[in-house]
């Protein structure tokens, strides 16, 4: 087993642990903090089913962003939908046998990488061109974009230019899952790609990338509009009631 294989594998295990514990901790934290008042942005759904729909539209179609800014919506859609397809395509490296849908998605997934990179470059350009966005941008925003672009580029290059040994790669990936290490093909591009992905997983729970989790807990989006029908007393607020009455 080469040193490189062990190193990359170790990095991935570390990244996975940090990613999972970090995200679980955040979810636990958000779930634990009470939401003492109804603050849905209205008009809001009056039933739970309505809220599920609202959330779905928000997560799947970026409804609010669409209302807000069409160009930004297009760039965000290019990036996120592109990324989703690319990720879906990557399942072929982990699943054996490869399910039909994943197989069918391969060509789309391959070219989705370009949509993703295009979207990212557009988003990045906004940070230089639009004075308001420039004002609110901090170095970490550039770094995140840079990281994602590099991941996209290195991945696309291994797919389209410097082909890597996919069979060996798949063995390595499945080996990671089954704790039965197999050698990693030593292409530099592939190693770069994998290392950057591990870095992304590590920073995910500690950065704004966490918005993917936050949106589900956003009280203005996930609350049912029913305050006249129902009291919503947080535990700490109930204490006030007990003290004074």
């Amino acid at each position, binding site marked *: 087993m080469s040193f490189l294989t062990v190193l990359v594998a170790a990095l991935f295990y570390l990244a996975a642990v940090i990613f999972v514990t970090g995200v679980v901790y955040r979810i636990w934290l958000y779930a634990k903090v009470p939401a003492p008042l*109804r603050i849905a942005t209205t008009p809001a759904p009056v039933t739970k089913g309505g809220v599920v729909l609202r959330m779905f539209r928000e997560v799947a179609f970026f409804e*609010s962003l669409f209302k807000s800014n069409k160009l930004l919506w297009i760039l965000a859609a290019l990036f996120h939908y592109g990324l989703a397809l690319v990720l879906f395509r990557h399942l072929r490296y982990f699943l054996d046998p490869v399910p039909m849908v994943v197989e069918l998605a391969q060509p789309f997934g391959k070219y989705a990488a370009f949509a993703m990179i295009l979207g990212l470059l557009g988003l990045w350009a906004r940070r230089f061109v639009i004075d308001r966005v420039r004002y609110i941008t901090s170095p970490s925003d550039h770094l995140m974009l840079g990281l994602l672009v590099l991941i996209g580029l290195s991945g696309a290059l291994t797919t389209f230019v410097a082909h890597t040994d996919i069979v060996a790669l798949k063995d390595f990936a499945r080996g990671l899952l089954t704790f039965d290490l197999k050698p990693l093909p030593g292409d530099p591009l592939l190693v770069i790609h994998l290392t950057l992905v591990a870095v992304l997983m590590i920073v995910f729970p500690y950065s704004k990338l966490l918005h993917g989790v936050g949106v589900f807990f956003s009280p203005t989006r996930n609350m049912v509009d029913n305050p006249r029908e129902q009291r919503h007393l947080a535990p700490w607020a109930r204490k006030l009631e007990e003290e004074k009455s």
Partner: protein
Amino acid sequence: MAKANFEVPEITGVTEVPAVQPDTMAHLETFRAKPEFMEALGFPGEMPEDWKEKAIEAMGDLLKKYRSLQVFLDACVKCGACTDKCHYFLGTADPKNMPVARQDLLRKVYRRYFTLAGKFFPKLVGAVDLTEEVLHDWYNYYHQCSQCRRCSVFCPYGIDTAEISMAAREIMDRIGVGDKYSNEIIGKVFRIGNNLGLPEPALADTLEGLEEDVYDDTGVRVRYPLDEKGAEILLVTPSADFFAEPHVDGLMGYGKVFHELGVSWTLSSYASEAANFGMFIGSYENMRKVSLRIRKAALDLGVKRIVFGECGHAWRVAYAFLNTLAGPFDFLDPNYPVPQHICEFTWEAIQAGKLNLDPSANDDMVVTFHDSCNVARATRMGDKPGGQFEIPRNVIKAVCNNYVDMPHGTIKEATFCCGGGGGLLTDDLMELRVKGAKPRMDALKSVTEEYGVTHMAAICAICKSQFTKVIPYYGFDMDQIVSVHQLVSNAIILTGEGEGGEEEEESAEDAA
């Protein structure tokens, strides 16, 4: 046109997004509350030595109490979708009035003290220590947010800068740094019962005067009762309704509607205020204390229903929070929502054909409607989402022949704040109020030119006060602002009215 010692923006009918001009509003700082007023609300009177630690401690406490704060401080991706949505940014070009930048003032301190990235790599993620300079920015710019929630509509994560502003104000209050306007007003509510400090005899006097005015106008004795035990309905209305123009014309209207329906109703001197400035300063405890006065008044007077008069944030506290803060209201008639908005009440009466209306009484006006931010984005009327837009419009259309909406993107959920909400309706912030009204003034100008709109109706005491004060700066006339129930009042033909002669004509002209 009113005079100003600052530059009044030019209105063109379309609001352009300005280029960023840092610090144009850095000089504007609202007066601070004196120690006695801070202490009356349970806050320290002076800044303690260890104010930094206390402030961080307060932030930590709020992070544990409000999921909104925790999630909103984390979730922002700096996408910039909100940057051109705030009326204060559009009117002042100061980048710290962009919602995300306003949040960042608090977020950068949160990051420094509460996140790993901010502890280890502050420069990278824009985290900073809490310093006097930062506190100064907090004070200035969290008092340049009217908590209108327009930004939250457009943010992909629903981040509501109003929540951040409220939290920031509470943190500052807890270290003895509070603003004079809101805190003194809350003090007045605790001592006297309303924001204006009108004691019971003054109220009784005013209401008697109203009865006479209505009698002179119509020849009908409409009652405006105060503290009447056993009445069916308790009306809670903003205290501006008792004397300010055009608010008081709205109060006349409520009375006429109740009169025509033959229901008994009363105001309460103890709870003679619908407004609840506890919300503006983000203080659950103070908001709750003010709300409990309404519960007590309802119990003492033995009423069966509670109806709220025209006021925006008051309706938010009433609709969205009252039941939670001061409920359960199981001693009231379960057939009606608690509380009800006067527009819901009047619209029901209109639908049931119980009011005799003559919309031609308002034929001298072409009316448009300003959706108040709190009503539009934080509440509902009726049982369908969006009722808060339809019901007031339905009422207006039932009493007015000429109605036009302002342009799409400036009304309903995208409505622009009047510029004076959120506890900013004070003369020391006049520059901000005038500039912040610009987007609404642009919209008003466009319908004035296109459709000949003459009047803008509102259902909020703050909107009405703010507009009557600032629209002269833009070349409009303060009489162009009307209450929705003033229009109702003009159009209602009271039972028995007109038997005495020609008064009807006159009342229509008075209002014009």
